[in-house]
């Protein structure tokens, strides 16, 4: 007998209602800066600087976006391109290395395997400040400091530990029967990986790819430290450095423009995140259980 029906229906309804009110308020606070940015990006200068500004723009005015793509003072187009290049290279490296590495750490054996894996896991808990000065120096010596490829290599190395951990978990969850069957047929370990394991690990690889994309696309501090040439700036860097360096006459124009730029930076991340939302939570639920 389901005795919890004893808890009155009215009581449950009241509780749920309170929770929904609370969460709605928190959500509004959480998305308000984003909402305000969207609105401002469509406002003209007059609207932004009027004595009694309204939240919503009077009309969908694309003047800020047009400025963004036409201005020659700040090269936003180049920054978008740079961000795309860095993200693609990072994702490619991370997907390739974590597919191979995750397999190596889970399904094949070699000496010191677990010791190496545990060391890599611990790297995730080392704060960014512990390595950044030396990273800057090493990147300088390797002449990778003002290079987009260099930045991508660095970013890949920073996101690889968690990606390896995830891929290892994915490979471990694949039943061994399939592998045994292929082994009896005389498949090598690489054939096993390519024909049997990888097709089954597709979901995990997508999660790794999106994760590393979000990391590379959103990276600010590594790009801000490693890139000094304005022509190499990625989007997250250019939207913060452009404002103080913009001539005063143009600054008025850039108020709405940098809102538009922030939005363009945020949008791909939001889209990709919503795309993998379910997998994100399920993955974490399983991961934290184990």
């Amino acid at each position, binding site marked *: 007998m389901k005795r919890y029906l004893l808890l009155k229906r009215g009581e449950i309804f009241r509780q749920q209602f309170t929770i929904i009110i609370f*969460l709605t308020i928190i959500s509004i606070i959480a998305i308000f800066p984003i909402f305000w940015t969207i609105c401002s990006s469509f406002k003209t200068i007059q609207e932004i600087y009027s004595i009694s500004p309204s939240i919503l723009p009077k009309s969908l005015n694309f003047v800020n976006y047009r400025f963004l793509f036409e201005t020659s003072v700040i090269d936003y187009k180049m920054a978008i391109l740079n961000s795309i290049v860095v993200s693609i290279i990072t994702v490619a490296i991370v997907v390739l290395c974590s597919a191979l590495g995750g397999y190596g750490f889970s399904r094949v*054996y*070699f000496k010191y395997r677990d010791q190496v894996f545990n060391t890599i896991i611990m790297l995730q808990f080392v704060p960014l400040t512990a390595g950044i000065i030396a990273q800057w120096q090493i990147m300088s010596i390797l002449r990778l400091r003002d290079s987009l490829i260099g930045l991508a290599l660095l970013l890949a190395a920073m996101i690889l530990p968690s990606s390896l951990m995830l891929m290892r978990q994915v490979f471990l969850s694949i039943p061994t029967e399939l592998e045994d069957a292929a082994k009896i047929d005389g498949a090598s370990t690489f054939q096993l990986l390519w024909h049997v394991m990888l097709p089954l690990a597709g979901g995990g690889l997508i999660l790794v790819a999106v994760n590393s994309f979000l990391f590379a696309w959103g990276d*600010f*501090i590594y790009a801000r430290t490693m890139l000094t040439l304005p022509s190499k700036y990625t989007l997250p860097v250019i939207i913060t450095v452009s404002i103080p360096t913009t001539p005063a006459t143009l600054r008025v124009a850039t108020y709405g423009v940098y809102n538009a*730029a*922030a939005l363009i930076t*945020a949008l791909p991340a939001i889209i990709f995140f919503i795309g993998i939302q379910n997998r994100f939570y399920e993955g974490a*639920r399983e991961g934290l259980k184990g």
Partner: protein
Amino acid sequence: MREKRYNINFVYILPALSFILIFNLWPIIWGVVLAFMDFRGITLTGRWVWFENFKELFSDERVWQGLSISAKYVLYSYPITQILALISGWTIAQLRILKLGKLYRILLYLPVIIPVSAGMTMFRALYEQNGYLNIILSKFGSSPIGWLTDPKIALYSLAIASIWRNFGASMFYYLVGFYNVPQEVKESALIDGASLWKRFWSIDLPSIKNMLFIIFIQSAGALTGGLAEVTALTGGGPARATTILPYYSAEISIWGEQRLGYAAAINLFLSIFTLALAYIVIRVMKVEKE
């Protein structure tokens, strides 16, 4: 063991390992070595100075100023972040309409997923002299506040932006923890007809106590954070009011006089300080458990 012969299997982790070694693990080790050297600029040779950097550090007023600003920054932002995250994570887990829970967890996670520099740019728009916050204030008849220009206020503004950005990440962990509370435990509480509040204190909270333990330890680690937020939002200003210690170390090395050895020493000092603090937290919590 038969498998031990296959040491060639090592090749699977080789690509991942080489990236991690060069750009992640080695810089952390080299960072410690650097702290005992005098290294300026991008020269290949440094000079051993042993403890000179640390001697200088202890008498450097700006280091102590940075440490105290870091501490204040954590004090203003970390507890509120965690409480907000705990409550929202728990309430989302209590929702009976699962679709609604999904919606809230997307909305509350958006600030985390948005690149940090885009988020801070959004806040810069809110904090502007004629930004939204000052518009609201003026509606209540108050004079505008220099959110980012008044040295007395800037650190609070930074903390608010940081709470906004980071509480979703913690909420995610709490939420996963609450989702993983065994179904039997949840049902037994419902049978007892326990009130919402009682369920929180006597069932759900104790079932994530390991997680809470980690959160407390991490509070010490938060001291090393904030570099990206400060760089994007305030640039350490006004009048050094938001120059947290990690920013100071970057300022005198990467973005300034390139005193790499000294900056590495500051970061090492911060790491050791953080570890010591974490150790104290662990000891205190163990005593309370007994």
